[in-house]
């Protein structure tokens, strides 16, 4: 079974092509890093896969079917800075939003939905902050709440946009432990990531991206100096320090 199949995906904003002819086939059960330089189209790739961009062409299949939100197969962690954290609500309420797809329109969250949301908060180590206003949480705590919301979606395939940006070391460890746990449970996780130092440790599968796919496959085959140089152009200054222990040649 393939978690994700992308065929001839292209995205253009006005006249600028952001993604061109992306083709991917990724089997289920992997923790996949989406790696590439700034402006490579990493977030755009996720948004295009989730059918959020009107001006895209190509075909996307998730678990070998076209995306349908009613299937509840997909969980999503958007970029943390995409929302207003002064919004008047608390942490538990945000996690509960992950249940809205299951609850459906009009109906209210049930006691069971609340219980699931609370367990997800507990999973990310935030149960003590359930009633806390989201504006009073630190950046790392906010990111954990976003992750808990995605867990509450009880999905099969997860897409996460830069979950490690601006978080503290403890949060980073918590997040990666949860991602590895999801993988152990047979879920598929796609993570936009830009820290090459940690990428090889975190992910067992990789998509190297720069407007189009440079390489995609198991980490040991894709995360090579040649591929990285190609994806990053000449911009990879710190390659010398990392190649000895982080890349596979």
């Amino acid at each position, binding site marked *: 079974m393939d978690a994700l199949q992308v065929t001839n995906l292209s995205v253009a904003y006005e006249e600028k092509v952001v993604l061109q002819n992306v083709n991917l086939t990724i089997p289920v059960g992997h923790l996949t890093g989406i790696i590439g330089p700034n402006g490579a189209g990493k977030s755009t790739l996720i*948004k295009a896969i*989730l059918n*959020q961009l009107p001006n895209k062409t190509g075909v996307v299949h998730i678990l070998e079917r076209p995306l*349908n*939100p*009613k299937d509840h197969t*997909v969980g*999503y962690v*958007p970029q943390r800075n*995409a*929302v*207003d954290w002064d*919004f*008047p*609500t*608390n942490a538990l*309420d*945000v996690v509960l*939003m992950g249940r*809205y*797809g299951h*609850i459906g*329109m*009009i109906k*209210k*969250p049930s006691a069971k939905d609340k219980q699931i949301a609370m367990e997800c908060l507990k999973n990310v180590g935030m149960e003590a902050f359930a009633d806390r*206003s989201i504006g009073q949480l630190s950046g790392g705590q906010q990111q954990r709440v976003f992750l808990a*919301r995605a867990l509450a*979606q009880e999905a099969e395939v997860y897409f996460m946009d830069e979950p490690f940006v601006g978080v503290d070391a403890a949060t980073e460890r918590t997040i990666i432990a949860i991602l590895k746990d999801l993988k152990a449970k047979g879920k598929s996780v796609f993570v936009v990531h830009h820290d090459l130092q940690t990428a090889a440790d975190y992910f067992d599968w990789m998509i190297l991206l720069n407007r189009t796919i440079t390489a995609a496959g198991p980490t040991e085959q894709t995360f090579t100096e040649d591929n990285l140089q190609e994806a990053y152009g000449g911009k990879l200054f710190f390659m010398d320090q990392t190649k000895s222990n982080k890349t596979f040649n």
Partner: protein
Amino acid sequence: MNEFWVLLTGSLVGITCGLTGVFLILRKTAMIADAISHTVLFGIVVAFMVTQSLSGFWMLIGAAIAGLLTTFLVQLLQSGGLQEDAAIGVVFTSLFALGVLFITLFAGNVHLDVEHVLMGEIAFVPWDSWEILGVSMPKAVWMLLIVLLFNILFLVIFYKEMKLSTFDSVFALSIGLPIVAMHYSYMTLVSLTTVAAFDSVGAVLVVAMLIGPAATAYLMSKSVVGMIVWSMAFGVMAAITGYYLAKLWNTSIAGMMAAMIGVLFMLVFLFKPHDGWTWKLFKRMKIKDTEVHVES
């Protein structure tokens, strides 16, 4: 009895606008209310030109269409690369000017004057009655009640969807919420609320009622439900205190109500516990005191 109807009308404006205004503040589109409150004039004039009547029903339809047109045009200009505030400025002045032109050209001898639309006259409310289902009440009260019912129904049905699409539209889209349809439905409600309220308090003061109470509630609320309740409460408080002060000082009722919104906002802004302005000042002084104490 007349006093009762004026108070009831004012309170209904406070409740209806207070309820609708909450999501304007949360969606950071407060200025679109300003735009809609002016462009509904265009809708009403066009509705009058088409139907040759000033009936409340056609006014509501005309206003709804004008509100949707405003929202659509603002969005169109924005997607063409203009900033939101500039887009609002261009659309609302153009449509408002068209409305004023049409009034003077085609509706010169009807009771539809610009000053009435802008300032309203709540004191005249009791003399214009409608009878529906055998109950006779002022037209303004009927219109406000009907629009309030629409607003409540919309929020009862779509509360959690409105909350999610306001807080995180990207996530809302990913779980299949129709965020565009919801945005336009909500803007239709804002238009209906505006036209129902402006006959009594005028277009300019509708903006005050839509934005002021909700902005005040925003300062002190930890949940959206709490914000809705406070916003409606502030709207009613401003209406009632405004009425009696206007009576006391023999001045414009609608103007006094709007002034009271400003007063309530300032009171909350200054004296709100924990992070109000005076509270912070007090804490800073206390810190200074302890420093002095330590030194001596």
